[in-house]
């Protein structure tokens, strides 16, 4: 990710989330930005087996995870790790 400034950028930015789970029946993106609602961001199964969704996010740091067939799953390519309000490990994405 290119990050050219040290200060905040107020605009929304389109972010791609990719989950490599070719055998899964459903993958959903959950995070602070959708109040961890499993119905909010279903991901699309791509021809290569990966799951993809593009979400516009505000500047800042967002906690998220994938729900792979209902199981909370970390993004192995995430830039960071933290915990959600339930104490589960989740991924971290910066948006600038």
């Amino acid at each position, binding site marked *: 990710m290119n*990050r*050219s*400034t*040290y*200060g905040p950028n107020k605009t929304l930015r389109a972010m791609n989330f990719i989950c490599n789970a070719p055998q899964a029946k459903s993958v959903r993106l*959950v995070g*602070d930005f959708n*109040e*961890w609602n*499993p119905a909010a961001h279903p991901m699309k199964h791509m021809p290569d087996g990966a799951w993809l969704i593009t979400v516009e996010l505000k500047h*800042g*740091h967002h*906690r998220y*995870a994938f*729900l792979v*067939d*209902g*199981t*909370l799953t970390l993004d192995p390519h995430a*830039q*960071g*790790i*933290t*915990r*959600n*309000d*339930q104490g*589960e*490990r989740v991924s*971290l994405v*910066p948006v600038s």
Partner: protein
Amino acid sequence: MKNAAARATRPAAGAKKTRERRAGKIHPVVIYPFRQPVDDSDLAPLYELIARLDTEKSQYARPITVMDRKTHYANETQKRFQEFRKGTVARHSDILDAWCVDTCQMWYSGLGMAFDKGSPDDVYWLIPGDFNYGTAVGRDVLGRLHDLPEICMELDQDVCIGEIETDHNNSKQLIDTYGTFALLYNWFPAEARELRQYTERPRSEFFAIRHGFLGEVLRQRWFAYEQTVVMLLQAVSSSRRISRFFVGNVSDLPEGSDSLASAMQQVERTERVLKTIWRERHQPNPGWTEEYRVLEAQSEQVRRTALIVLENLLG
């Protein structure tokens, strides 16, 4: 499993509270390199960042630079050093001149000084000065470091560790894999498992820490070295909120720090610190010496094995 996941992902009451940015300030604390680099190519971009932070007074406190007096005296006749100190370092930060036995004492002094000026919503951001910030990847890292204190602020974290990427044969990687974690698993197995869920770099010099937690670790006995490990052990033991953030693949400036002797010393220091912490925590328990002797014997084996591995790979 589905029910568990659905239950787990439901936002808790008051979850929004943690997303609100607090009104605190970020205190940048730069640890000036012990040895003055041969040119300013790595320090100049670092202090360009510090200069920028110094102008954003609503978000950042006045930066602090900790400079060992030995560094000062070793370079006091060097015009280039004096000019850089006066024209750049002192211009954009308050210099804390201190006699320090090692880098950890520089941290202690610098973070302590910032803490004294801080308030409960503040976050303290440690920035080691002895990295190759002048390279392309170094500049990229400089562009990411601000994420560490911002994560503490925005996500209400007690500590955020910055993780650097190195190849498998890098001395830091080898020391952590065969030394630090092996020793941690011996002395503090539960904490080690927890820590490894966050980071492969428990000795990272890049981190940000919240006021309350910094106050807690400052007031405890300050161990002579491997402070990040001590701080993370404390964070895990007291169920603090920990985050990890990848900052890039920056590397130390060459100071012989990747030598075998240095690697051995770092493993030995880690063992000494872990033994001391273990004793302090367990000495109130009756019969602790018996358990200690068992762990110490195992620890010696772990350390010897680590030193053999390091000798084979670095020697």
